[in-house]
Every structure is written in structure tokens, then in C-alpha cells.
């Protein structure tokens, strides 16, 4: 069964045009914005006919560059915004017609400062408050909160305030909000943004194991391709308000990359060498210089990896370059992303 259905969703925002700070028109910019809108050209098209379905228990990821419409889409599914057109259904409930019923099925976890905690309450009090918001009685919410803190491994810190938690622990507490409400669908915006590598690993591991175990449906956004590949069953790639590709990480890789990636790290590799490398039988070459141009990292995508590796090493060495490292590997989602948005 489908947990989330999104069909042909459109959303646009009014574009507020400013007329210079400090000027009379600038101060009345909302008047100008209204006039601008009346002329029918003052809108930003955030979503342009987005459609997809997410099955029950599936972990679904949305990736794309900044401004692609990911957050707007999450807000529309999370009943924080009403779409201008289209249909969104969560666990069989139309979110536009029955927003309150739909909200009972969804937990929305934002990113960054939007942590959604009351910083003056303890962890257990925060969870009680959240339980109350989902209609539990005080005693039910209290016993649920204690139980869930155990599940997320924070029971020892039950009486601490969120400010005393590490970033990873805070993110786990955010997830606990959804566990206490027992919502079948979670929407998480950038689950590991701002976390240190250890905290991010902890949260990823937790999501991977707990969500599958509990059978929750998760839709999340991320800019970390490794994270998308590691967590998601399927990935949607968004650009300028549209979904341009959708599929499992393997399907996306197969679709966009028929070959392997050669990683090379070398010294003294200049433009003439790069030109020669490009003339080989390669699909794509990505490179970036480090240490003021002394070291270069090359990612060569090709269908003949081992032949090209030999030829590339010959070219680099014959042009007085020094090889630090070379390897052939399977392509990752990041390679797919680079090919789509290069």
C-alpha cells in the first residue's frame, strides 16, 4: 500500500520585489509587491507538477540543488503549506481536505535551528508536551515519554535540558517526538546537517535500523549523496521544481553511468595533461586542485577502466607528474549527481 501519494502538485510563492532600502517605496515594499502580483508576474514557481508515490515502510530520499523545491515539497506533504494545485495523500488521507487527520499521521523534523524543542523544558517534559499535542492525556504522555526515551537511548538524560545534548542526541530526540506520536510517516529535512561525523554516523545508523524495524515510512532530503545512497530505498532527484529522475540508487547509477570511476591523486598535473586525458576514451572527467594547484584529484568515468588507468598514468608520468594514488571503483550516487548537474 502507498503511504504517501503526490500527484501533479504545483506551488508558487509571491515574489517580493524591493525598491531599494530606505526609500519610500522600499518601506512600502509590500504595497509594491501586491501591485507587482496584480500584474501577474510576481511569482516564483517552487513546484511544477511533482508526482511520485512512496510505499509503506519505504525510506525515500529527495535530493537536488538549493532552490530545487525540496523543502516546499516537504512542507506541502507535512501540511504546513497548501499546494496551489494537485493532490497529496498521506496514509489514505487527503491532506488538503482533511489536514488535521493528516497531521496525526505525520511527524515533521526540520533542520538546523528549527529543532522544534522548548529549550526551557527537560527532555521528558518536551516529549510529554509533544504527546499532549497528539491528544494523549497527561498520564499517558508521561508514561509514553519515559518508554520512548529508553528506545532512543536517552533515558539517562531524561531530566536534562536539550541544550546539554550533543547534536546527534538532539536529532535522536527529534525522532523520538515522532515515535511518541506513533505517526506512520516521518518527514525529515537534512537529518545530519550540522552534525560532526560521529554524530552523523550515529543518526544514520539509528534511522537505518529503527525505521525498518518499526516499519515507519520516511521521506528525507539531504545534500550528502553518501547518506542518500546509504539510507534510501529510492531517490528522487529534483531540479527547478520538477522531479527529473526517480529510482533506487542502483537504478540511477545504471541509468546514468555505464562504466567505472578511476580516482587519481597526483602532483604537477597541468592543463596540457588534462587535455590529453580528455582525448582518451572517457565519458567524463572531474578534477579539482588542492594546495594552491600542486595536487590534483581526478575522477575519470569510463567504460574501459583498466586500459584508461594505464594510459592515464603513462600520460601523467611522461609529463613530469608524480602519482600519489590511483584506484578503480564502482560509481556512487555522487557521480550520478555530478553528471546530472555538471
Amino acid at each position, binding site marked *: 500500500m502507498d503511504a504517501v501519494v503526490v500527484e501533479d502538485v504545483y506551488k508558487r510563492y509571491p515574489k517580493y520585489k524591493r525598491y531599494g532600502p530606505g526609500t519610500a517605496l522600499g518601506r512600502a515594499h509590500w504595497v509594491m509587491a501586491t501591485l507587482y502580483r496584480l500584474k501577474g508576474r510576481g511569482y516564483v514557481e517552487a513546484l511544477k507538477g511533482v508526482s511520485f508515490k512512496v510505499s509503506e515502510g519505504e525510506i525515500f530520499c529527495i535530493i537536488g540543488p538549493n532552490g530545487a523545491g525540496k523543502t516546499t515539497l516537504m*512542507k506541502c506533504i507535512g501540511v504546513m*503549506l497548501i499546494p496551489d494545485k494537485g493532490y497529496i495523500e498521506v496514509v489514505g488521507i487527503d491532506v488538503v481536505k482533511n489536514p488535521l487527520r493528516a*497531521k496525526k499521521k505525520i511527524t*515533521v523534523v526540520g533542520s538546523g535551528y528549527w529543532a522544534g524543542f522548548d529549550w526551557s523544558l527537560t527532555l521528558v517534559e518536551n516529549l510529554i508536551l509533544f504527546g*499532549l*499535542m*497528539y491528544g494523549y492525556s497527561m498520564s499517558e504522555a508521561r508514561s509514553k515519554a519515559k518508554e520512548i526515551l529508553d528506545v532512543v537511548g536517552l533515558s539517562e538524560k531524561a531530566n536534562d535540558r536539550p541544550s546539554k545534548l550533543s547534536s546527534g542526541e538532539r536529532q535522536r530526540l527529534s525522532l523520538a517526538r515522532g515515535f511518541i506520536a506513533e505517526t506512520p510517516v516521518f518527514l525529515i529535512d537534512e537529518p545530519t546537517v550540522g552534525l560532526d561525523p560521529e554524530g552523523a554516523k550515529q543518526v544514520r545508523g539509528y534511522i537505518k535500523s529503527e525505521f525498518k524495524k518499526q516499519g515507519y515510512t520516511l521521506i528525507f532530503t539531504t545534500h550528502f549523496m553518501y547518506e542518500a545512497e546509504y539510507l534510501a530505498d529510492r531517490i528522487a532527484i529534483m531540479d527547478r521544481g520538477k522531479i527529473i529522475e526517480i529510482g533506487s540508487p542502483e537504478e540511477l547509477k545504471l541509468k546514468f553511468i555505464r562504466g567505472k570511476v578511476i580516482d587519481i591523486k597526483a602532483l604537477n598535473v597541468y592543463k596540457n595533461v588534462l587535455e590529453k586525458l580528455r582525448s582518451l576514451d572517457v565519458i567524463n572527467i572531474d578534477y579539482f586542485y588542492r594546495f594552491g594547484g600542486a595536487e590534483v584529484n581526478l575522477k575519470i568515468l569510463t567504460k574501459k577502466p583498466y586500459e584508461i588507468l594505464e594510459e592515464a598514468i603513462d600520460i601523467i608520468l611522461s609529463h613530469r607528474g608524480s602519482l600519489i594514488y590511483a584506484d578503480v571503483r564502482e560509481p556512487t550516487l555522487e557521480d550520478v549527481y555530478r553528471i546530472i548537474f555538471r
Partner: protein
Amino acid sequence: MVLGYEFKKGGCRVILNIAIETLRSRIFKEYFWGVSLTMSIVDTIVGILAYYYVALFVQNAMERYVSAYGVSYAEYLLIGLMAGVIATFLQYSLYEGISLGYWASETDLYITSPIGLKGMLIGHMMFIALWESVILATYALAALMLGIPLHLENLPQIVLAILVASLPMIGIGLVSASDFTLFNAKRGSMTGKVFSILQRIFGGYYFPVGILPQQLHIVSYLLPHTYFYEAVRIAAFKGVWITQKPELLYPLTIQGIILLLLGVLLMKKAIDKAEETGDLSRWT
């Protein structure tokens, strides 16, 4: 309007629970900033003393304007200031509730839950009511210390005057709160600012409107505050029931109905717009 909770069985209890938790959290936050709380009370006391001595200073000049009430100007001023605390609560608490929730990123949390904003707003308004009660008590204490009578024997008349006048004040409160999302959250309440300016000059808050030039009286007559302060003062000083004064009762009732209808209409429009544009969320 989807930013509310379904008032089915138990809905009110759920909202009340949330409101109490919000109140508790706000009290803790204020307690946490104990120095700021103490300074606010000190500031209020200093304000009262300043008003009191200014009132003594201008007593002779004000005599002919306040003699009709049979009280000193200090007494006249203090009752106006105390009524002003109540008017401020009625006019701004809803706006303040939304504003506090928005800037604390609480609105994000509440609008994603099925409860909606009601619990949070009621909680914040309860806190503001508590805070205004502290200010009112400070005024009362200061009045007792300065020997200014509070006319508590006329409390029922004062309460009725406040109840009648609360209609237009709540209407203004709804209009002010809808500003928040209709215009722009970061711009604050323009309606609130406009009424605050008007009432201080034309509303009979500090001085009787008779002092103003004749041409400006029209503004005073259009403001509900003028009737409100007058009704409270005659109730306190002379024990007059507002029902005995049709020249105060009718304007307040008519303005109350108009402003309430306008307030409800604008509030609905503001909530619809907030849902359309996501204005109540700080998550971008």
C-alpha cells in the same frame, strides 16, 4: 482554517493541557531571566512615581478639567493607567502570543501537530495575563503607598464597564494579530502601533479630551478608547453603571460589533494566507 484542533470529545482538555505546559515553560523562562523580571517591576514603580509627581506638579492647571470627577489629577491619571494595562492586554495579547511563538520557532512545532496553534496561543495569553496582573498589582500597591484611593467599593461598576469595553478592544486585538501574517511577520503589528499612538493622544489616557483643540475631538469620538477610559473613570469615581450612560454604552457596543466582525474576518484571511505562504513557519 486548519490551524486549530478538532473540538471533538476531549479536544478542550487537550488544548488546556498544552496551554498549561506553555504557561509553565514561559514562567520558567521569565524566572530564568530573573534580573530582567525584577528590573521590569522596578521600571513600573519608577514610572508610577514619575507620573505621580508630574501629576502633583500640574494639579492646579488640571483642576478645571478633572473637577467634574471630584478627584485629584493624580487619582484621575492612575485609574487611567490601570485601565490602560487591561486595554493593552485585550489589544495586544493575541498578537504577542503569535509573535512570541513565532520568534521562539514554536509555531513551527505547533502547526505541524494536529493541535494547531490554539494551545500555544492560550498558554502565551495566560502568561501575558499573569504578567499584566503583576503590573496591575504593582500599580495598586504603589497607589496605596502614595495614599491614592482605588475605589474598590465601586468594583462591580468598574468590571461591567471593562466587560462592555472589551468588545472593541478584542476586535482591535484580532485586527492587530492578523497584521502579523497579512503583512509580514518581521514588521510587527502596524494596527497595534497606530491604536497605541492614537489612544495616548486622543483617547483620554493621560488627560481629558477636553484639553485638545475642538477640531481634534472628532478623532477622540471615533476611538473606542475614549469611551472606555471615561466609562471606567466614572464607574470608579462616582459608582455610575455604564448602562446608565447611553452616550458611552451605544458607541462601545456599536464599535465592538464592527471591530469584532472586522477582526474575525481579517484573522481568517490572515490564517488562510499563512497556510498558503507558510508565513508562520521559520523553517526555510
